[in-house]
Every structure is written in structure tokens, then in C-alpha cells.
């Protein structure tokens, strides 16, 4: 048995011979081959574009994962600030899961980038060879008789065929890799869609965010109340009383809410938007009363 490299070399030669044998008129061979070269060139370029698309998709996903990881870090921080170690732990656990995904993505990204560079280089090489072949083809057609042309055609043909075989393998390889990546990228998209990760539209909120918002709005309400109480205490008694009457419902609600455990989500998030906005409208009235 010959060496492994000789055997690999032989496949290429065998394929070239087979292709050459099929064609009878050598000039036909030239044109036929040139057509195939152009087709292959197109295919390589498409291959480069496909790999680039996959690479960009992975970059996009990595960005999303990064954003999500940062958000979970913030959530953990906030949860700790309000003394909810359990929530902080949950946020950090999720973040470590994301980081695993993220490092996988980075490996894939590097692989795709390598593949893209190789394919780009292959495309440049093939382009140069195809150009050289076209020049040779025209010379052979113009100068030589069919019989003389045969040897020269074989020379040119086997040179380009080998390149085409190599590039063909490279494309196949890139296609396989891209398909693998896409399957994995699809899995991450599913993960994103399932709500385990952040919804890119920002409409759906995850449970940690909801709970933290609930905690935050409860304390906002408390702060607002304290501020209002202080304002009332400082101002004249007549004007604030009228305002107090208006404010009564809003004031009555928050304390009961604050008494509730934060885990209860009976109050939808919109509820919390309401008191602050009311509070913002109310203060302008109050200071005016104070000024008079």
C-alpha cells in the first residue's frame, strides 16, 4: 500500500481523468470546464456569505445573552439591597447558566470566523485560477489544432480540476459546519422564545423583574407617603386639607399594599405606575398652596 498522501492525491487525479474521458472534442472540454468553474466560483461566494450570516447570528445571540447576564447581575444586586438573598441567588444561578451558553457561542464564533477566512481565501485563489484558465483557453483555441490542443488542455484542465476539487471540499465542509451552528443557534433562539431569556420586544417581564419591581414600587410608595406627610406637616392647615381630600383614595391604598408580603402579585405592574403619576400631579398643587 502506498502512503496516505499518495492515496489522497490519487482521488483527485482519478476524478480529473474521469471528467476528461467523458468529453470528446477538446475545445468543448475547455468551454464546459470554464462554465463549471464559474458555477463553482458562485458557489464559493455564496458559501462565504452563508458562513458570514451564521457568524452574525451568533454575534447577535451573544449580545443578547450578554445583555441578559448583565441584567441578572443588576437584579441580584437589587435583590440583595432589599434583603432578598433568595432572589439574588436565583438571578445568579440563571446567570451562570447563560455564561455557559455564552462561552459555547464564543467557541463557535471563532470556528466560523476561521472557516470564513479560509473560504474567502479559497474564493480568491479560485478566482485567480479561473482567470488564468480563461486566458489559456483563449490562447489554446486560437493557436492550436484540435490534436495539439489536447495535451495543453489536459495540463490546464488538471490544474484547475484539482483546485476545484479542493474548493469543493472546502465548501462542503463549511456547509456542514454552518448547518451544525444553525442547529445550535436554533436551540438558543428557542431558549430566548421560551421566556427563559429576555424577550427582545421587552413586553414580557420575567418573574425576578416582576418581584423586584413590586418591591421597588412598594418602597417608592412608602417614600412618597413619607414625603407627602412631611409636606403636609410643614404647610398651613387649610389648603392641604382640601388636597388631602382628593388624595385620600391614593393614600388609603398604598399602606395596605405595603403590608402585603412582596411575593403576592395581586397588583399588576400598572397599579404601581398610577400612584407615582398621581403623586407627580399632586406636588405642584401642594407647593403652590405652601407659597400662598
Amino acid at each position, binding site marked *: 500500500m502506498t*502512503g*496516505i498522501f499518495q492515496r*489522497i492525491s490519487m482521488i483527485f487525479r482519478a476524478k480529473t481523468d474521469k471528467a476528461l474521458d467523458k468529453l470528446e472534442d477538446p475545445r468543448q472540454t475547455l468551454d464546459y470546464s470554464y462554465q463549471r468553474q464559474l458555477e463553482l466560483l458562485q458557489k464559493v461566494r455564496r458559501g462565504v456569505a452563508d458562513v458570514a450570516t451564521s457568524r452574525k447570528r451568533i454575534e447577535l445571540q451573544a449580545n443578547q445573552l450578554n445583555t441578559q447576564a448583565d441584567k441578572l447581575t443588576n437584579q441580584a444586586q437589587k435583590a440583595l439591597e432589599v434583603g432578598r438573598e433568595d432572589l439574588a441567588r436565583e438571578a445568579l444561578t440563571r446567570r451562570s447558566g447563560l455564561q455557559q451558553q455564552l462561552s459555547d457561542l464564543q467557541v463557535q464564533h471563532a470556528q466560523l470566523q476561521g472557516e470564513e477566512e479560509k473560504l474567502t*481565501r479559497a474564493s480568491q485563489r479560485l478566482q485567480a485560477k479561473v482567470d*488564468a484558465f480563461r486566458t489559456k483557453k483563449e490562447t489554446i483555441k486560437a493557436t492550436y489544432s484540435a490534436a495539439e490542443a489536447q495535451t495543453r488542455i489536459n495540463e490546464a484542465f488538471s490544474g484547475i480540476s484539482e483546485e476545484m476539487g479542493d474548493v469543493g471540499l472546502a465548501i462542503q465542509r463549511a456547509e456542514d459546519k454552518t448547518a451544525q451552528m444553525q442547529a445550535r443557534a436554533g436551540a438558543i433562539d428557542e431558549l430566548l422564545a421560551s421566556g427563559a431569556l429576555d424577550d427582545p420586544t421587552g413586553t414580557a417581564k420575567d418573574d425576578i423583574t416582576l418581584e423586584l419591581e413590586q418591591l421597588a414600587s412598594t418602597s417608592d410608595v412608602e417614600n412618597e407617603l413619607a414625603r407627602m406627610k412631611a409636606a403636609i406637616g410643614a404647610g398651613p392647615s387649610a389648603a392641604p386639607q382640601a388636597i388631602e381630600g382628593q388624595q385620600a383614595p391614593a393614600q388609603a391604598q398604598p399602606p395596605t399594599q405595603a403590608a402585603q408580603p412582596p411575593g403576592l402579585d395581586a397588583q399588576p405592574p400598572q397599579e404601581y405606575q398610577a400612584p407615582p403619576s398621581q403623586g407627580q400631579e399632586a406636588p405642584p398643587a401642594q407647593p403652590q398652596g405652601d407659597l400662598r
Partner: protein
Amino acid sequence: MIVRILNEGQWRLSDDAVRALNSFDDAVEQAVAAGDQDRLTSALHTLLDRIRTTGTPVPDEELEDSDLILPAGDSTLEEVQQLLSESEEGLIPGVTAP
């Protein structure tokens, strides 16, 4: 002598440099036979590095066929085996070595 590294291009090598490749050929063949990816990768890397440093690249616009074709440096065992199984096919119709 011209050597092609798959997915990389062609290099022109002196006869001495080519003779030195024989031992690597054995190393690669043994690694493939043993199904040892690490050995295959390291044998290929050493070999290809040597070709890149001792050879001169064939310009892109030159149309020449190679005397020897080598697998890419990051080839997997399966890829090399696939190349070889195709070469078995190629051998059956009686294609002779040069």
C-alpha cells in the same frame, strides 16, 4: 515538486524536503489507523508547518497540478477516512499511481 495542502493552497518543495515528508506520512497513517485524533492533529501540524516554512507558495494565477495532496491541518479523523475511502473507490477502476 508541488504539494497541495487542502483548503490552503500549493507549495513548491525541493526534493530533499519531499524526502523528509515520508516519516510524517507514516505518522499520519498510524494515527488514522489507531483512530487517534490528537496524534493525527499533531502529526499534521508538524508536517504542514514544515511545508510552509521550507516551501515557496505557488502563485494563485499559476495552473499546476500537485504531485502530492495533504489533508488540512484541522482535519478530523472522519474527514481523512472519508478522503481515503474515496481513494479506494478511485483505485478499483485500475487508476495507477504516477
